[in-house]
């Protein structure tokens, strides 16, 4: 009988396929669905000179890689901690003039990904006309539309080596199911695979395809777009995993406080990135089962009910 190979692997295995200087795309959005366990593993394995792409927007994923010295080039429309404040390392390195930013709007990233997914060298949009973005980013170029002569911006297709996404569930072959927002994850996978790159997905839980309730009609990301599946419970922490646990704002505040001094930052990296032996150890250091319970389960019900 034919034997089908599953795509289950470990975090170190998946991250080992990233070489220094690669272009790495991270899924999710703002403080949500970010592949944070991957981000920590990239730092642990000592990757350098990465180009980090966060479509549409980045937060602690990008800022941690900047702060740990893993990247010198950021491609994103926004890097910040939403209502919690600006991204400290991103901000400091930009102000020092030693971090390159592919300055853009969300829509430019979408057009760059769509072009890559369809094997076009570039895509077109009117977004950005009248702004300074084409002045600041040589890969956004104002040209004349060949049909009407009206101005339009050509966006160069994104070239990337590898993408990491965090999704709530997948089967061992890589069929993944988002339980909340999909953000740009599917488009990212299409773009990176089409260009010959690899796509890895961390999941909060690995699901047997025969599990009752596992319905192929609800799969958001089919396996032909996925090279590897890694089971990492709470793998998006401290960002949220849509419908499973909330973002850990206490941890974000701790991160932001640590980033205020070099000593604080080194201590943070030691405690949460280099120190933990594995994900279970990391979660222990973040408050363990008690803290994770406070972020999941009934937490969303309490927060969504006024008066609590």
């Amino acid at each position, binding site marked *: 009988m034919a034997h089908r190979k599953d795509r289950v692997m470990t975090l170190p295995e998946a991250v080992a396929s990233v070489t220094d200087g690669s272009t790495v795309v991270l899924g999710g959005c703002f403080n949500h669905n970010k592949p944070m366990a991957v981000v920590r593993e990239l730092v642990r394995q000592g990757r350098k000179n990465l180009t980090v792409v966060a479509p549409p927007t980045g937060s602690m994923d990008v800022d941690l890689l900047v702060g740990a010295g893993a990247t010198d080039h950021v491609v994103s429309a926004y890097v910040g901690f939403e209502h919690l404040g600006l991204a400290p390392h991103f901000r400091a390195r930009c102000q020092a003039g030693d971090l390159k930013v592919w300055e853009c709007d969300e829509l430019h990233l979408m057009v760059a990904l769509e072009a890559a997914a369809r094997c076009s060298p570039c895509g077109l949009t009117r977004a950005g006309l009248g702004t300074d973005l084409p002045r600041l980013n040589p890969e956004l170029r104002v040209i004349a539309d060949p049909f009407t002569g009206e101005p339009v911006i050509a966006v160069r297709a994104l070239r990337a080596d590898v993408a990491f996404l965090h999704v709530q569930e997948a089967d061992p072959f890589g069929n993944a199911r988002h339980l909340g927002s999909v*953000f740009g994850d599917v488009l990212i996978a299409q773009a990176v695979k089409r260009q010959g790159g690899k796509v890895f997905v961390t999941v909060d839980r690995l699901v047997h395809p025969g599990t009752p309730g596992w319905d192929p009609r609800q799969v958001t990301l089919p396996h032909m777009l996925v090279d590897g599946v890694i089971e990492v419970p709470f793998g998006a922490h401290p960002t949220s995993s849509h419908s499973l646990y*909330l973002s850990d704002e206490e941890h974000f505040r701790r991160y932001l406080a640590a980033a205020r001094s070099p000593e604080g930052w080194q201590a943070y990296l030691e405690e949460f990135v280099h120190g933990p032996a594995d994900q279970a150890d990391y979660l222990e250091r973040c408050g363990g089962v008690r803290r994770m319970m406070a972020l999941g389960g009934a937490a969303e019900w309490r927060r*969504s009910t006024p008066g609590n």
Partner: protein
Amino acid sequence: MAAFYPRELMAIVLAREIQDGEICSPGGAASEIPLASVRLAQLTHAPNAVYLTSASGFVCNLVGKQPPPLTGSTTDWVAVYGGTEALIDWPFVMSTRRDLFFAGGLQVDVFGNVNLIGVGQYPRLKMRGPGTAGIAQASALSDRFYIYIQEHSPRTLVERVDHISAVGRCASDPERRRWALPGGGPRLLVTPKATLGFGDNGTLELKTRHPGTSCDELMEITPQAFWGPHIRDLPETPAPTEEELHVLRTQVDPNGVLRR
């Protein structure tokens, strides 16, 4: 007149701009003011309006539903309980018509250009901002947009922004026409102290002062380029009605995010 907080008034002023049936986009990150305004409009004069929450793609209408808390982030998935009726992905949002949009910024200039990139010369900015997010596309493509800033000062109101993230200028401005943009440009700028709109010469000028703010105070904190012809005699922004304030506090913002 009931007492109210500046951010409550800002949300109320913006809510009044929304017409019934429109598709609204309150933005993504720290966006509690526009989020409150679209929810307030739905629960008062615009029950058939809908709002989309940027990249997270929650498609929401609150009418007849249990009031959700106001969150600092529209990407927070507790928004599922905030009147969400459908969930779409980011490319779907980017490909959907939006009638109006809200933009916050580090700097706004007399043309209504908005800067989220940073202050100072590029690339060694004196103050690096978060980046353009989605305001370049929204200012080019949505029918109209509204600008809100949480500080009214010469730091935020400038003659020329250092870098343009959102393209301003009113629909009749030759510069906007040159770009052949589908969108009609900014309609109104609201601050904690006043509202500003386009004057006859195509630049933003003070239109109304919020209750409790005098013309003298506005002259002190507003660069002269924004004064306009009526700076000494500005009418007052209509204060919140009892209904607006009641709906805002009981159904839109029961946890008092705007009262902090």
